[in-house]
């Protein structure tokens, strides 16, 4: 291989690695909120290195205990919804520092009240054996409100609700419709596939 080609290849590898690191880190942070909302201890545990520390509210400690504490906390609500939004990330070798904004929406049990709030996960992540995981996480609270959720509760009948176990559709592979909806669908005419036109190069 010529020297120029080798240099170019090396640069490509470096750039590709950076983008993959960014994606892996972002995926890790999203996996956490998914694990939390589904009360899935396995997913939650998987986003941390075994010796990682989490500091949430009055809690500070290691992960096996944090996962139990966090799930018990979330289970007090009828449902929870956490969304990651604004995200910034600095990578330095095998260490990364990130800030990820989070919105949460909580439906209170046996109540018409809902809560919404926002905060930030400030994380230090490390790459070990090729896997980016959290070694230290702190949640900073920015705002929280409580409001009338009667509208939300009134609509529960007409919207599909998720569950907080492996029966939730997000775990299903391949995704299919439940029998009742499949029957509804079967009564409808199926669109005919369009004849394939030659693809433009």
């Amino acid at each position, binding site marked *: 291989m010529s020297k120029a080609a080798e240099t170019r290849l090396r640069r*490509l590898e470096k750039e590709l690695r950076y*983008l993959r690191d960014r994606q892996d880190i972002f995926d890790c942070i999203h996996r956490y909120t998914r694990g939390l909302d589904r009360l899935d201890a396995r997913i939650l545990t998987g986003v941390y290195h075994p010796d990682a520390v989490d500091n949430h509210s009055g809690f500070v400690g290691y992960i096996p205990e944090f996962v139990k504490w966090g799930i018990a906390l979330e289970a007090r609500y009828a449902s929870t919804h956490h969304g990651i939004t604004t995200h910034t990330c600095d990578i330095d070798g095998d260490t990364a*520092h990130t800030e990820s904004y989070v*919105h949460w929406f909580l439906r209170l049990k046996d109540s018409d009240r809902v809560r919404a709030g926002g905060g930030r996960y*400030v994380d230090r992540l490390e790459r070990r054996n090729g896997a980016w995981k959290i070694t230290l996480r702190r949640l900073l609270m*920015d705002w929280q*409100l409580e409001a009338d959720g009667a509208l939300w509760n009134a609509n529960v009948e007409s919207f599909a609700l998720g569950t907080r176990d492996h029966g939730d559709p997000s775990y299903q592979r391949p995704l299919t419709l439940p029998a009742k909806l499949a029957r509804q669908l079967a009564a409808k005419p199926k669109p005919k596939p369009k004849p394939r036109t030659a693809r433009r190069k």
Partner: protein
Amino acid sequence: MTDQPDLQAVMEELRRTRQRLQRLEDRQAILDCINRYCRGLDRHDKDLLLTVYHPDATDHHGSFVGPPRAYADWIMKFFDDNRSYHQHCITTHSCEIDGDTAHAESYVVFASVEKDGKTVRLGGGRYIDRLERRAGEWRIAVRQATIEWRCGPASTHLSPAPDQYPEGTWDKNDLSYLRPFRLPAEVMRRRI
């Protein structure tokens, strides 16, 4: 040299891979720039805020139209005078790149706590941006901010930091600046 044509094919493949990779890098750099804006704003970090604009850029935000430095002064004064907290969250984002120019639309959901420390307002809008790459760096050249919905104040702010959650600050003491990030000694003492 029978392998000469193969080498050429490899070089061509490398060139195309380079192009595809460049596109991904551009997309990442542009989204990073827009996220950095929110971070600069919410931490009241003018230096960080100014890194998202080219110096001759124009921002049109409500009653303000002007260059980045004046915008930063204006918006920070507005927040200092009217808000005790705010958070700007980027959600739906789309982006078209044409050479060294990009057009992006980024949705934003914002929450702000008024000076009374009790009233929370929520709102949503979009940042409509033209970005340019100059000297290898993507920054905003023109920004138009929109606000499309607002609600409140029919809401009661719960304590900003219930149950020992740390509060964010508007200076470099905010935990997100700490490198390497570690827990404060007083927190570590409580570790079980």
